[in-house]
């Protein structure tokens, strides 16, 4: 259950109360805010609450989470009413359950004070004389700002603007203020916020890297917690990108965080990589590693690869400079699914990705700061059971260059990935496709078009001629259309194979669209 809710009607308090039951709780404290019959001397006969719901929900959630963390209580919830309320109606309900009463009282107080102060909720009072007025909620007294000591043994000062202190690293001769400025200007993309990603994100945020992008499509699972140190037990079920972003904001509020809640794919990875100075690959997926390697080679963005297996790890830095080796120089083809062991199947000891992720963070900082690095390129193998490591120099002359070179291998790899990614897309009508930015290309014969016109602006190239007339196609996303989706599907795959990565096919063709008749009636 969420910690904060808005309700447009009276709600069942017994259910809210029950939701805060906790076996470890010895005390429960509730606060209720009611509508009273006067304000500042004027008789009131009702009021109306209006909320900027999206923001109120996000901020309310934060307030209650802060209270839980600050006072160490077991459970808490706050409900705020919206809409029209009469005298005596419940406007706000807050409940907190905790081991001891003192934290429950304090958390309750904290929540109501912060809610009143921070939430975008406005109150319109209806006066007996028929007049109304929007009432600002100002000058809230916040009890916790006057706390000097509370229930548990650490004191919290009121939040002041945070000023980062990087003195411990700027003291290093090779870093200094110049290096710190480089970090502040840097944009680093971290793909995967798991066992490897947690230390990478922690150290890069702590070091003051200006912008961190985080890619992760997963939600936190209890089985992640033994190795993914950014997260708490109460975060289970939440999207990792959101959790990681919040954690970084708490660790170093000066860092700008961009989140990508879906895995990158062949269609967008090059565009995303171009926005970053450096990429750290921290997924548990070989497909993602090859995709990242190919995008790195094509964009010239350096990539730091690591992976772990049980008690071992591998580390490779791909500089993406011409002549330097890449992942495909070692293993040219992505192994078939299931060949490479994963944490799920093979198990892993928590600190193993911790060690390898920390090493990725070191390599990232070395690149960003231009610190002295090993001159050659190597695959580093680390065995944490017997404490050995091996640094195997990679000879680029024995890699991709024996075939067509890294760039050609990367192009082919990306084209293969692209050829299988979202070629066929579904649209209910063509207006939606145009609104989504697609240029329509009609591949049908003249006779078919006469029988069933598109009723939308489009380019016409009969499917038999698409190969030779491909150069006429515009840049930008294109949607190929035929009667059934068959010809357009074949053509789209053929064009993608030629490197035109922005081509799609209308799934099911014209037959799958709602007919104009359907669309305009009713």
């Amino acid at each position, binding site marked *: 259950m969420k910690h904060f809710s808005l309700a447009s009607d009276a709600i069942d308090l017994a259910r809210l109360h029950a939701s805060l039951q906790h076996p470890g709780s010895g005390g429960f404290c509730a606060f209720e805010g009611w509508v009273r019959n006067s304000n500042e001397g004027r008789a009131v006969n009702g009021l109306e609450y209006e909320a900027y719901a999206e923001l109120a929900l996000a901020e309310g959630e934060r307030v209650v989470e802060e209270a839980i963390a600050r006072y160490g209580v077991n459970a808490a919830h706050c409900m705020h009413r919206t809409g029209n309320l009469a005298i005596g109606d419940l406007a706000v309900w807050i409940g907190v359950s905790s081991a001891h009463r003192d934290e429950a009282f304090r958390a309750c107080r904290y929540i109501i004070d912060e809610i009143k102060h921070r939430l975008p909720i406005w109150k319109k009072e209806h006066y007996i004389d028929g007049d109304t007025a929007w009432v600002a909620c100002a000058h809230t007294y916040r009890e916790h700002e006057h706390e000097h000591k509370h229930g548990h043994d650490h004191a919290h000062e009121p939040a002041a603007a945070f000023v980062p202190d990087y003195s411990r690293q700027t003291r290093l001769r090779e870093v200094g203020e110049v290096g710190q400025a480089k970090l502040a200007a840097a944009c680093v993309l971290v793909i995967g916020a798991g066992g490897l990603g947690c230390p990478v994100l922690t150290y890069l945020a702590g070091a003051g890297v200006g912008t961190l992008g985080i890619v992760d499509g997963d939600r936190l699972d209890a089985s992640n917690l033994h190795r993914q140190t950014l997260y708490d037990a109460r975060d289970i079920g939440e999207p990792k990108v959101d959790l990681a972003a919040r954690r970084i904001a708490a660790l170093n509020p000066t860092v700008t965080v961009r989140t990508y809640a879906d895995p990158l794919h062949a269609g967008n990875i090059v565009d995303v990589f171009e926005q970053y100075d450096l990429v750290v690959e921290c997924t548990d997926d070989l497909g993602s590693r090859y995709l990242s390697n190919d995008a790195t080679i094509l964009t010239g963005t350096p990539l730091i690869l690591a992976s772990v297996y049980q008690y071992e790890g591998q580390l490779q830095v791909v500089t993406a400079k011409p002549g330097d080796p890449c992942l495909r120089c070692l293993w040219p083809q992505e*192994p078939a699914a299931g060949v490479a062991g994963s944490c799920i199947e093979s198990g892993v000891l928590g600190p193993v990705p911790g060690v390898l992720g920390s090493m990725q963070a070191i390599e990232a900082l070395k690149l960003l700061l231009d610190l002295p690095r090993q001159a050659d390129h190597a695959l580093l193998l680390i065995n944490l059971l017997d404490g050995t490591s091996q640094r195997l120099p990679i000879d680029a002359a024995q890699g991709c260059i024996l075939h067509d070179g890294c760039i050609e291998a990367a192009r082919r790899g990306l084209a293969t990935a692209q050829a299988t990614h979202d070629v066929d897309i579904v649209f209910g009508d063509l207006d939606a496709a145009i609104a989504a930015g697609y240029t329509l290309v009609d591949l049908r014969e003249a006779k078919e078009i006469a029988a069933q016109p598109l009723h939308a602006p489009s380019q016409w190239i009969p499917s038999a001629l698409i190969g030779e007339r491909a150069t006429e196609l515009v840049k930008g996303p294109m949607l190929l259309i035929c009667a059934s989706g068959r010809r357009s599907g074949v053509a789209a795959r053929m064009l993608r194979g030629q490197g035109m990565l922005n081509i799609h096919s209308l799934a099911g063709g014209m037959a799958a669209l709602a007919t104009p008749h359907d669309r305009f009636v009713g």
Partner: protein
Amino acid sequence: MTTVTLQYYAQLREQARISGEQVSTSAASLRDLYEELRVRHGFSLSSDALKVAVNAQFSDWNRTLRDGDTIVFIPPVAGG
């Protein structure tokens, strides 16, 4: 017969149930040696999916064995 030292990583270590061993072999090349070991330990990976290094340098699979070589077979791993 050639005597060489072998080190196993990741899946290979798990399947062999040892992280290394010393073997005497009549295998002529690294590829022949791996095929011999594959039968003995039941390795699931073919040599195409692996890199091999000899005396801390990546090597060609056709390289002949010499007494005292330290040979490492390296599979790609995916965990994170």
